[in-house]
């Protein structure tokens, strides 16, 4: 992310969360946090505990975030944010917490055939991580039609440009799902697992052969010893942990979409 992208991201993030942007400059912003946002990103649980226990008057922080220190000509006091800074990571985390589950309807114009019909879909974004002594991650966005069971890949890319609204449009007719959302979720889970299974897993074989090679070297070193020292077991354990292969499956977010 470039400074400009971070800047836009922050403004969107705070606006969506009802935090007032007190000052909006090209390379920094000053924002008045809400109580909820303060709790989420300011790392001061003791303060909040204290205020709540004493019925004190809460005073959520006002912060200045500098998004491009290099282009800033004025002398502004504030926290410099960049891609990789802990505060930005916290904001990313907050975004994820606050954007995990949605329930959206497509806004549609009335057509000549009468009332438009909205079909329910379940969309889920999965992050898959492969681990050995190395890592690789993949993002799968899957959608399932809760009427027909039809499945789509890159679902998020497909719906992101649609005009969606949290409220049901008055002019449209939404179909009640036939496949229950939790059943749909199970099917998507199975689909993503099968994607994982079909994937090329030479990485795991390679990790295993690295592990075997290291293991042989270690065994050779302690071969002659009848009573192997404690550090031998320690080395073995470290090696197991280092090369152990593992796949992790996380859901980034997901939701119900009523779309044409």
């Amino acid at each position, binding site marked *: 992310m470039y400074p400009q992208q971070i800047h836009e991201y922050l403004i969107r993030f705070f606006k969506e969360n009802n935090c007032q942007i007190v000052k909006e400059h090209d390379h920094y912003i000053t924002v008045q946090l809400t109580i909820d946002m303060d709790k989420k990103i300011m790392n001061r649980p003791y303060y909040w505990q204290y205020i709540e226990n004493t019925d004190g008057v809460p005073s959520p922080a006002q912060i200045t975030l500098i998004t491009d220190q290099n282009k800033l000509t004025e002398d502004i006091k504030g926290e410099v944010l960049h891609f990789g800074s802990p505060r930005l990571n916290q904001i990313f985390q907050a975004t994820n917490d606050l954007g995990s589950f949605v329930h959206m309807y497509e806004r549609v114009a009335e057509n000549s055939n009468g009332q438009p019909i909205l079909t329910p879909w379940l969309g889920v974004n999965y992050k898959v991580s492969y681990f050995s002594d190395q890592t690789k991650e993949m993002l799968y966005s899957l959608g399932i039609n809760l009427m027909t069971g039809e499945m789509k890949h890159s679902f998020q890319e497909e719906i992101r440009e649609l005009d969606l609204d949290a409220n049901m449009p008055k002019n449209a007719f939404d179909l009640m799902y036939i496949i229950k959302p939790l059943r749909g979720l199970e099917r998507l889970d199975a689909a993503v697992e099968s994607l994982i299974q079909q994937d090329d897993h030479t990485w795991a074989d390679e990790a295993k052969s690295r592990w075997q090679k290291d293991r042989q070297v270690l065994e050779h070193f302690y071969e002659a010893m009848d009573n192997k020292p404690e550090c031998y077991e320690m080395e073995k354990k470290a090696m197991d942990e*280092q090369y152990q292969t593992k*796949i992790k499956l996380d859901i980034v977010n997901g939701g119900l979409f009523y779309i044409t």
Partner: protein
Amino acid sequence: MIIERSSTWKEGFIERLENRESWDNWTLYKMSYDVVKTNLITDFTGLQSPKYLPNLTPLPHQLEVAQTVIERMNGKAILADEVGLGKTIEAGLIMKEYLIRGLVKKALILAPASLINQWVEELNHKFYIPAIAYRKNYGLDHYNVVVMSMDMAKRSPHKEHIYEQDYDLIIVDEAHKLKNHKTKNYEFVQDLKKKFCLLLTATPIQNNLFELFHLISLLKPGHLGDYETFQAAFSASKHNWENDEFLKVLVNQVMVRNRRQDTGIEWTSRRVQTIPIQFTQQEKEVYDMILELKNISPEFSSPFTMITLQKEMCSSKEATYLTLNEMRQKCTDPKVVRYIEEIIQKLVALEINAKAEKAYEIITEANDKVILFTEYRASQAYLQWYLHSKGITSVIFNGKFKASKRDWMKQLFKDHAQVLIATESGGEGINLQFCHHVINYDLPWNPMKLEQRIGRVHRLGQEHDVHIYNLAIEQTIEEDILELLHVKIDVFEKAVGELDSILSTFKQSI
């Protein structure tokens, strides 16, 4: 293969389906997806860390080291770049990469006490890694990245506390301190679990090949075979062997080493001179009397005492006096006492220190900032007095100084004094690129110490050629030291690779 999954999202979803929680905002939903997509690590190989570090511009050789260590050495390596090429940056890049990839959660950095603050500072500011310096009353549970001195870590109860933790990455700075496998340091690190491990040292061999064997056996036991086999293959003489090409290949599988000239950066050159010095007649007499000591009494047959005395006599009468005086007090035989007193008398009467005069001459000619290294505190004090009497300002530098005092002394040297007089232990970890003359007033036995000394000055950021003056008094033990230094450099170069010049071709010049 096992797929790890969590049911957290499903539970939250159910709560919303049952209207017990409210749904989230669509814009944040989209932003969240985009962030995950932007941060996705799409490949097993390649470095992610640079894009997270906008305030750091790593040099090409540093990036290459980080990538080699992670991809070819599986995160277990000796980082052995020459002094001043940025081993800390390399280690930081590797650690950051593992943190980003989620392969390391907890890391422990073991460093000499004097370098702890520098580590904490660099990790926090250059790498945004929230490292803390360990304090005695801290629990280790709550801190993920801890910097600690080796001296503290190896002692109880800290040692036990460390063993209780589950560290994924261990970094040992100045790892040549682990060269001796019979020390507590070595034992401590040997018993640590080392999933990923980096040993940092510019000088993986200081004296002999076995040091390298022990260092590598700590990192990857068995990589060089077991001790017996190794000994049989390489110890016909400690300094000569035939399999050196094969050894070099093995060593290079676990060790990365950049030399200044490999870095693609224009380095200023090193101009090394060995300056032969003649004792004055009077000094020579005292030196010869010291040599005679072993024939006067069997008490002085210990080569260690004799060598110390000879070396001290090559440094200053002040250094010699301390040792001699101690010997006299321990001595019972009146004949011997008389002999020692005779030496002391002659010693005290000495008016000229030929070596100090030479040093003064070099300093005057340089007409610039100079660092002078001596092995003895007494010589250090004498030299400050002597230079002062000649109108030259100097500051003193010891390893025992606290961090704040070190910084202060460095600043004094930079702003107000012409000469910095340092003892060996003061050499580690200070960077003095603004200076480009180094006088090795006394020579250490170990060439890597010389390299460490020169590295204080000849490092990234040095804009001038660096002048190094190795002082050696003719027909004394210092000639033998020079000879041995050459042999050791030869061992190093055969196993590890070439070294930048530390010594001039003294043999030819004498």
